[in-house]
């Protein structure tokens, strides 16, 4: 298919999915963007994805890709390494992210000076394997992202489980913290890591009254009742099913899907083990939200 300037061409372009090596258009009239290369005066897709065009710039947005960070993004990550004055964090990006010791909240208040003793007890804050929610602060020269957790909303995660989806399915929204009505909190990391956990009431959130380092850096789960655990498992499976069918995720989709599952009285595992249930769920969500 040739790309042309008419409106008809643009609409057909929008729905077009490329395969690597597919010729998109002539390079004389258009500029190549990400996901494309030029050969023999032709712009050719280098990845499988959807074609996008801004004026004369042709890009292909890949279907499966690593997370492309932007400053201000909310991400969920896992500590992979404790290094000198910094942690290395796996955030599903091309390189490990970096969390500097100076970018975390330390016990004793925000105004406190960083001490040498903090460097020696970095593992009491975060150790290998720990999950955290953070914000992308800046980029290093090599493109690695630097994170910070200098907010009471950010920090170590507990009381729940992690679900991984392709990052492209997480839309940029006003807030990425949700409380579902079923007593489950969700953190939709833009890197495709989704934290599903027990709901914590706002007034019980750690650090509300001053900063309670003990609670913020705790590894201990709260008491969680069976109903909440079941809800966490159900929400996780709903996310897995929707992700498997490439449904973009946000809170309304998830609430709708969750209510549909409860209404139809399916068990948690039906979603995972029965294809008919999964397909029905996806079509139910699609009919409820025709814009998706």
């Amino acid at each position, binding site marked *: 298919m040739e790309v042309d300037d008419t409106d008809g061409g643009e609409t057909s372009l929008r729905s077009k999915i490329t395969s690597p090596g597919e010729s998109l258009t002539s390079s004389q009239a258009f500029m190549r963007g990400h996901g494309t290369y030029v050969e023999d005066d032709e712009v050719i897709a280098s990845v499988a994805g959807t074609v996008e065009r801004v004026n004369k710039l042709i890009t292909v947005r890949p279907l499966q890709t690593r997370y492309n960070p932007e400053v201000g993004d909310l991400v969920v990550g896992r500590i992979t390494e404790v290094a000198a004055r910094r942690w290395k964090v796996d955030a599903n990006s091309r390189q490990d992210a970096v969390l500097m010791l100076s970018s975390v909240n330390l016990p004793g208040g925000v105004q406190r000076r960083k001490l040498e003793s903090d460097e020696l007890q970095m593992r009491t804050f975060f150790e*290998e394997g720990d999950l955290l929610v953070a914000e992308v602060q800046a980029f290093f020269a090599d493109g690695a992202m630097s994170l910070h957790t200098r907010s009471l909303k950010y920090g170590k995660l507990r009381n729940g489980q992690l679900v991984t989806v392709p990052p492209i399915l997480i839309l940029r929204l006003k807030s990425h913290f949700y409380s579902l009505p079923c007593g489950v909190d969700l953190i939709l990391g833009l890197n495709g890591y989704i934290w599903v956990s027990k709901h914590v009431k706002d007034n019980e959130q750690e650090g509300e009254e001053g900063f309670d380092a003990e609670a913020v850096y705790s590894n201990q789960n709260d008491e969680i009742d069976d109903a909440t655990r079941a809800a966490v498992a159900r929400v996780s499976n709903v996310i897995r099913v929707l992700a*498997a069918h490439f449904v973009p995720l946000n809170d309304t989709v998830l609430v709708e899907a969750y209510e549909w599952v409860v209404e139809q009285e399916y068990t948690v*595992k039906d979603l995972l083990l029965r294809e008919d249930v999964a397909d029905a769920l996806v079509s139910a969500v699609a009919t409820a939200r025709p814009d998706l």
Partner: protein
Amino acid sequence: MLSKSEKSYIRTSLLSEPPLRADGRSLLDFRGVAVELGVTALANGSARVRIGGDAGSESGGGGVCGTEVLVAVKVEVEDVSGSVDGGKGRMACNVSCSPAAYPSLTMLQLDDFQSDLTSILDTTLGCSSLCPTNLSIIPRKKAWLLHVDALVLADDGNVYDALFLAAAAALHDTRIPRTRPIEYRPNNARSQASADASDDPMDGASGLDTHAMPKATDFELMDYWDEGEPLVCPNGMSWPICVTLNLVPPLFYLDATTVEEDATLTRLLLLYSFSTNSSNTRLQGMRLLGHGEVEANLIKPLIREGEKHAKHLNQSLFAKLKSELTKRIPQIVPSTKRNK
């Protein structure tokens, strides 16, 4: 790698009443298992097994890709005239792992893991009690050597069960080429006589006699409509099936995902083979993995429980293979249909 709170969340969920797993399965539920036969054209038998992964999608879809193992069996002629065990043929197993399946492991760690997998597959399948009885080509001279090569394409937990399922399916799929022993006999007297009688050299007996004879020195491949005969497992036993019991005392669960495996201290691998016509069961192997400990008196009931699940797994695999293989009889293009 999991955080402490994730580990404790998984363990508490498992030990709560009723037990709950991260994806809502009950303790003894398996994820969907897909078996596909005849996936590599150049091998004598091959199979691909996938446990879990996204339903219905070929390439993993948008979520996790599950555990995927590919096994190919290739036969090779081996000179066994010098061997001590009578030269009945043998199996050589090798397992390799795709680095993409274990992105967090270094090459050295990956090598270690590969040799772990190879050793358990090789010691179990290479056991003389499981050596197929029809590998001999010419007794005490030539025999088939079965190369069982496995490739772990993706690992989302329970790789041992997937490995043995794939190996069993591939061995079921394997066809040994039909052979006929031959002997070269220069029969001087008769050839001279026939040369006198007529000028046609094809007249009379040829130098190559292709009848079965006790002193055969070589063999030829028979041209036949199918690819050969299936492997015959001795005593009517099935190929070994592995069940991994993930122990969280006082209970255990099956088919752990990677995350659950990380949160489980001890795993008990049990390898069974079942007789196809009687209720005879053999325990082919057993491994205790991990750094936990197990009460000695727990082992016996675990072995009994494991047998039940292995039997169930074996029956489902057998039913699946049977339907796959009967589909392939009018064979022009090998049909490869995957099933959940």
